[in-house]
């Protein structure tokens, strides 16, 4: 099983990791790395294999920026 890397804005405690594992069953808790990235503001970004799941506030703000730009056209 490949390693899963979770980027979060602050260190995740066990209950939060359990929540994520329940939602995304491919996460293997024994092969997990938690990296702190303050620029995410809040939320997590999960990297697994070649997949990214962006649940961070930074990601949602970026999407909002793109949407506003499109509306302005």
């Amino acid at each position, binding site marked *: 099983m490949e390693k899963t890397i979770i980027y979060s804005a602050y260190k995740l405690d066990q209950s939060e990791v359990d929540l994520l594992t329940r939602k995304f069953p491919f996460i293997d808790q024994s092969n997990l790395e938690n990296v702190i990235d303050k620029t995410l503001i809040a939320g997590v970004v999960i*990297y697994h*294999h*070649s*997949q*990214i*799941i*962006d*649940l961070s506030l930074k990601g*949602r703000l970026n999407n*909002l920026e793109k*949407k*506003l730009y*499109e*509306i*302005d*056209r």
Partner: protein
Amino acid sequence: MKSIDDYLKKIKTGIVPDKFKFRITEVGSVVEIKDGVAILDGMDNVSFGELVEFENGIKGMVIDIGIDKVGIIILGDYLKLGSGDKAYLTGLQASIPVTDDLLGRVLDPIGQPLDGLNSPSERMRNPLEKIAPGVVYRQPVSVPLQTGIKAIDALIPIGRGQRELIIGDRGTGKTTIAVDSIINQKGQNVVCIYCAIGQKESKVAAVVDLLKRYSVLDYSVILSASAATPVSQQYLAPYSACAIGEYFMDKGKDVLIVYDDLTKHAWAYRQLSLVLRRPAGREAYPGDIFYLHSRLLERACCLSKKYGGGTMTALPIVETLEGDVSAYIPTNIISITDGQIFLETDLFNSGVRPAINIGISVSRVGGKAQVKAMKQVASKLKLDLAQYREMAAFSQFESDLDEETKKFLNRGSKITQILKQNKHQLLSLSKQVSIIWAGTKGYLDELPLDKVTQFEDRFMEVLSTKKNEHLKRIEEQKAINTSDEKDLLLVVKEILKEFINSDNNKK
């Protein structure tokens, strides 16, 4: 400047209703960058033909999927990418935004504007790759597409929904025929799409200018992937143009699409295939070069009434070298299309313009797409021209020939003179029928050859002004009856008298 209130309203309707859905995005990182192509690592769940976006906003399309690598053609400046750059799948198949506002615009193959105006709205996107409509969806071609060029409308008629190839050497007038066909669609309720593949920027600018001058840009769309654009865009350009055409065709409209030209399209695909290390075949083209064009041209069809009745007529252009129509790409496309128009350098140089070789040009739809009036005059025209071609070799011995042969040669040379036409000077159906009728009935036989063009101009002038009702009647009935013939004969006799008198006065 829009007011803040407008913005806020748009934001409320555009963004607020969107529920948050998280997406699992596939990511890949660049391992190799070759000329216009990037090889990526990762991206396990990718599908063929999907659009990807690099971190710096450059888009690409998936064209090769291997066990642990993905080949992507880059729809932008590949020099801005570096090894290790990340790319994200967008989840969209390669597609182009389509709306009614595309009419009058100049776009590139991914839908971005080249005329400095706003980008088209993305409400609806049409996929670039699509399987052509099957047998059940089609009906035979029956409505003519008037090109305004006498030689084509009389002898090699094109119907709506047909594919007719325009083939010839460089500088023989291929683009001129295609653009004239577009100009003649004014008022015919036909959407025209001009797709420039690998052309000079100056040439595309000249075409845009020409269409503007004749006020036909309002019902045309121009899609340009010029020679300076990345090869990936040149490869996608005809498919984008076809996707736009299908949007209008599905709404029941008639579409005319010009691919200028498919030779350069084949070169672009060859470059991509060789860079992707696909096996090279004849003339270094990849094995699927036939499928490249067949799947494109099959999408031009005539839909049955049950499915909207829309049609898409394709005029692909192929450039030959030294008149060699037995080369690889020309033979491929000749076998796909429903006929071809051959243009020859010799004819062009000897003054026959449009330089169409009637003998080997053919339209497989033919008379089914001709109006009755044209059919009545065209059959005699074909016969006279065929006889002229047979005798053409003897034209050098004019003094030693018998009367019969001399008659054929005379008639043939007059008719050939009638079929000459200046570029962008297009004739309506009734005018074409009138002048061909006059020629095939023999009323020009007595006129000296150098006066035939003057006669034609004067004939057209009189018919458009004093005797306009004759033309109107022919247009409405779409046929010529004996009373029409009598009226036309009067006009012809009048003009012939004018010419004889002016000759006498000169003497």
